[in-house]
């Protein structure tokens, strides 16, 4: 039969909140000493004269203690019996203190065409000091996301991660869906603002591949101030209409980029003129899904070509 038992207001509380606990020592345990002294420790610290001790008709003893502010995020409250001058541990209660989760913020998502999944990430907010579960929740919708169609399976991030990847089979492409993050711990739950997006409108494009193009063979003498280049859109996005931007600069110190007006992705060759003869130029290109919405890819690695 249990010698002593702690009962406590809560094992998890807000940092700085009070704690009330009582430790009941059964009669069988305290028979050796008519007036057994019950002592408390918080972690390693002995709490001198803090418990109000009473005897109960059934012969048991009960000590009650209140800690005004619990300031450590994880500690133990221990109940001892002073038994012929040796402290005997009867029971201990594990205590956690922290904060309810703040509202997750900066939720953003990108559709990865290689893994064919929608990857969302967010800011988790300040440390709550408590085990806090984040879940990426979503449902299929239509139009401007005012209606809820089929729910989508919760996306549970890997431990400690503030991102989650919704697999293709849970997505309905080319339709809007509603996405948000839920943060939950023992002290409460909080939800991020909702996003309304079509996964295909947040595709993460990789840059195109730039290649030199031999000048037109019919041309007797290639113009000295021109460069000829061609490019291939990133393969997984080849079915998307895109527009691309080309920028170039001579390999001279402090030379700044000059940019060519957007080029539709259907044309994959370009003649760049008006350049300095006998000069090496660095060329870069980036593309974006267009006219449908999308994100610009990063600039491609530089292609270096020299005018004649």
């Amino acid at each position, binding site marked *: 039969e249990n010698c002593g038992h702690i009962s406590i207001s809560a094992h998890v509380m807000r940092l700085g909140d009070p704690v009330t606990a009582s430790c009941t020592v059964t009669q069988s345990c305290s028979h050796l000493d008519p007036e057994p002294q019950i002592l408390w420790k918080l972690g390693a610290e002995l709490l001198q004269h803090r418990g109000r001790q009473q005897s109960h008709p059934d012969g048991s003893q009960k000590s009650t203690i209140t800690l005004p502010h619990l300031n450590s995020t994880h500690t133990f409250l221990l109940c001892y019996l002073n038994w012929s001058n040796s402290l005997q541990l009867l029971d201990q209660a594990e205590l956690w203190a922290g904060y309810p989760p703040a509202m997750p913020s900066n939720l953003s998502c990108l559709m990865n065409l290689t893994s064919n999944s929608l990857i969302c990430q967010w800011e988790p907010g300040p440390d709550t000091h408590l085990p806090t579960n984040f879940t990426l929740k979503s449902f299929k919708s239509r139009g401007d996301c005012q209606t809820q169609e089929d729910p989508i399976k919760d996306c549970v991030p890997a431990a400690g991660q503030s991102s989650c990847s919704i697999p293709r089979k849970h997505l309905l492409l080319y339709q809007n869906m509603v996405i948000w993050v839920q943060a939950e711990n023992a002290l409460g739950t909080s939800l991020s603002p909702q996003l309304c997006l079509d996964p*295909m409108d947040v595709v993460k494009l990789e840059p195109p591949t730039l290649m030199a193009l031999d000048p037109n063979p019919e041309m007797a003498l290639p113009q000295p101030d021109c460069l000829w280049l061609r490019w291939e859109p990133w393969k997984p996005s080849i079915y998307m209409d895109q527009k691309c931007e080309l920028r170039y600069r001579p390999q001279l110190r402090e030379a700044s980029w000059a940019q060519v007006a957007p080029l539709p992705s259907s044309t994959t060759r370009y003649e760049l003129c008006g350049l300095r003869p006998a000069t090496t130029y660095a060329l870069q290109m980036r593309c974006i899904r267009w006219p449908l919405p999308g994100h610009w890819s990063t600039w491609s690695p530089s292609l270096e070509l020299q005018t004649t």
Partner: protein
Amino acid sequence: PLPLPRSFVLKCLEQARRVQAEAVEMQQKLCATYRLCHPEELTLLGHSLSIPWVPLKGCSSQDLQPTRCLRQLQAGLVLYRGLLRALVGISPELSPTVDTLQLDVADFATTIWQQMEDLGTAPAVQPTPGTMLTFTSAFQRQAVGAMVASQLQCFLELAYRALRYLRGP
């Protein structure tokens, strides 16, 4: 003419190109893995297994009827989704392609269905994929896969032309 939002037509064009590319990939894999590289050799088998051919009469360039074309396109996509569903688990090499293709065909069908609903031109009853095909041998399932991949490309070619016409200049 049907007041089709431009973004809807652009999305359909993109989805058609996307599904087309995946159907080509499926055909290439069937050729590489099972040497089924000539769909024209499977006509007789197709008849015997009664593989449905999906007409797109409302989408012909001579006589384009937008409402009818969209309905036939959507019904055809639902039918192809059913055919693709019968091919699930065809083989480890092909399954990823068939699974993605099936999802993309289904999403394309949903895009059209929801637009028809918004326009009030959707048929009263959603078309269904019909009874699931069954096969008596692995070869039959592979051969049907080759037929579906080939026919789906012709189907999408027709649809793409009609959608481009609907997109206008």
